């Protein structure tokens, strides 16, 4: 009996664990090993450089720094705007509004499209002469704003981000809706009897009970922001002047275009480690608090 109890978890875990180890863990470790070398992937010329790649990325590679900055901008934007909007939509559409299912579908719908398609669709929206955004801004008298946003290094990333929000807000919205529906009515009723105002109930009841939801939303949003690629590459190709490069696209260039496998792997591991440092403590912290 005893033996069986200890074996059981491993048996149930086995299929997932095996596949996970083979597909994700071992290849990642291989990539980690590669990041310590100067190699093009094929020649016999393979030189161990220790942390050399990691250091040269920070000290010499201007595009890497730009990419890192862009990912951080995207991350901050996602954590605030995308999550904020998702939460707002969820709060609105959680009420007993007529047609709320219809609206939920509309806001979730863009999430179904792939990044490449979103890139084409929104490049066309922003097109300086044939795009709807340009047309609309001119029509409402804001011609001054009707610039080719995508070709200005100062505005390109933000313009792409708007498209990113359009595509991505559906997921946090749906997650928050679920979280909200799991909250029982009692605390609210008690609070209203006590005379609490809407903002107070939101702050002291809703938010704390959404803590678990925030974990999932936070984790998926952060990972998504660090890995973002298709939509940016599709809309500007990393330009103008490499100003919209991100870690994923720069890693692609280094590995597959320039044949610097070590550098490409180092970029990957920067990405992974940044996510790790932020997400893991947060998840563990929340797990401890929620499950007393």
């Amino acid at each position, binding site marked *: 009996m005893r033996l069986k109890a200890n074996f059981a978890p491993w048996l149930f875990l086995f299929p997932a664990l095996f596949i996970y180890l083979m597909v994700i863990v071992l290849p990642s470790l291989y990539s980690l090993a590669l990041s310590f070398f100067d190699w093009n992937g094929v020649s016999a010329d393979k030189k161990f450089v220790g942390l050399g790649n990691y250091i040269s990325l920070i000290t010499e590679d201007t595009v890497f720094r730009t990419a890192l900055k862009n990912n951080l901008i995207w991350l901050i934007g996602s954590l605030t705007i995308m999550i904020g909007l998702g939460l707002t939509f969820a709060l609105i559409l959680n009420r007993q509004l007529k047609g709320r299912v219809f609206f939920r579908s509309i806001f979730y719908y863009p999430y179904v499209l792939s990044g490449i398609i979103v890139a084409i669709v929104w490049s066309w929206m922003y097109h300086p002469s044939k795009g709807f955004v340009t047309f609309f801004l001119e029509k409402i008298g804001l011609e001054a704003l009707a610039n080719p946003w*995508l070709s200005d290094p100062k505005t390109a990333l933000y313009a792409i981000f708007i498209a990113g929000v359009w595509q991505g807000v559906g997921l946090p919205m749906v997650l928050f809706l679920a979280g909200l529906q799991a909250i029982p009515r009692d605390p609210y009723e008690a609070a209203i009897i006590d005379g609490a105002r809407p903002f107070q109930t939101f702050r002291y009841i809703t938010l704390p009970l959404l803590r678990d939801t925030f974990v999932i939303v936070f984790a998926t949003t952060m990972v998504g922001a660090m890995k973002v690629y298709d939509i940016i590459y599709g809309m500007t190709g990393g330009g103008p*002047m490499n100003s919209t490069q991100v870690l994923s696209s720069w890693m692609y260039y280094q590995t597959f*275009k320039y044949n610097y496998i070590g550098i490409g792997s180092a970029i990957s591991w920067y990405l992974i480690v940044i996510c790790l440092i932020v997400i893991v403590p947060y998840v563990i912290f929340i797990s401890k608090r929620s499950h007393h």
Partner: protein
Amino acid sequence: MRNMRKLSPLLLVFCLAFLAACGGGNNSSGSTPSTGGTGNNTDSGGRLNDQGSSSGDKVAISFWGIDGISSYVEPIIKEFEQENPDVSVEISWFSTDAIKESLKVAASSRTLPDVWFNWGGSFASFYSANGLAMDLTQVATDHNWTGIYNPAAIELAKYDGKIYSVPFHLASLGVFVKKDLYEQYGLQAPKTLAELENHMAIMHENGITPLPVGGKYGWMLMRWTEQLIEHYAGPELHDQLSALEASWTDQSVVKALTKLKEWSDKGYFPKGFITMAPEEAEMYMYSDGGYALEGTWFDQTLTSNGYDPNNYLFFKFPNEQGAVRMSSFAEGFQINAETSSEKQEAAIKLAEYITSPDVVNKYINEYGAPALSEFASTDAAPHVTVMAGEVSAGNFLITDQALPQEVVDKLFEVTDAVILNAMTPEQAAAEMQKAVDQYKANNP
């Protein structure tokens, strides 16, 4: 503790299994003993079929090509299989970006196909330099390639003096413009740069975008940049620049970038063109007019978009230098250097078949610009023969294949910067040279 003890043997088993499999894959049994002596013990081709024993049974080879050629190459390959029943070909089609990536991944994991489509220059050299593509110089001599293929194509198939591809297409680039537009303004094909600029001014005055160029991904704008460099630097210096033997801080580079900026400031490019997709920019050309610096494939592009190639006038970019060289490149088929000599033989046979005169002429309407020295002309693609004749007079390898890829991307970056006023042309030239030096340091 107890769980830990149970865990470690499990993990050990996984690792051992994985490593064993890895090791096994590299020395896979079943590779035929080499008869040619070109060092090939890795079995990379026969994934799904029999390896083919040395007694003359069916040889299975794998072929990778791009989607754009599939409409005619696929039937050609089927015909090849009929004529050569002892060879079977497994075909894979890729989009343009996908094939580059897949080839790199396959190279690193030693799973390259037996024959693959590739461009030239720094795209192909990776495979040639690292012993992945087969040296075909002897084959070229034995099979009399100089009598079959255009000498320009054979040159472009070389790396380090040796031939590494079977020539497939010989592409060259020139300027196309709508005939009726030129007739409307009473213009003739320009012979000098100044004349071309006059024509551009006329178009611009009449509300047409003279240079409907999309800068996204850099290559479309580069076609104009490189011709300006040819104009200001002359053929010899231009070649040295491309070979990284001359400094990019040269005045000719500065002048070329300055000229581009001048055109941009005059409004000759579409608004916001720097990140506009090439196909989107070309819409202006189709609907209103303007110049297209395009290549031998352009006739087909026009046709597939519903336009008549015969309505377009072609002329070489008037760089006013010597033979007025065209930008050019070759597409070809590379053969896997590490597969069995049987498969190599079959692969070479296939590649030569696809590019042989009879086959080419049969499919000439869709084939594009063959690398042959002689081929039939077709009304469907009237400019191909014209351009093939011109390219032999003089050509240089297109910049995004002549330079190493990271230097190419730097060129794109600094060109953008100059146009956007983020850098002066002098600074841009200096940055280019820095990138060249960096490349040389990383690749001694």
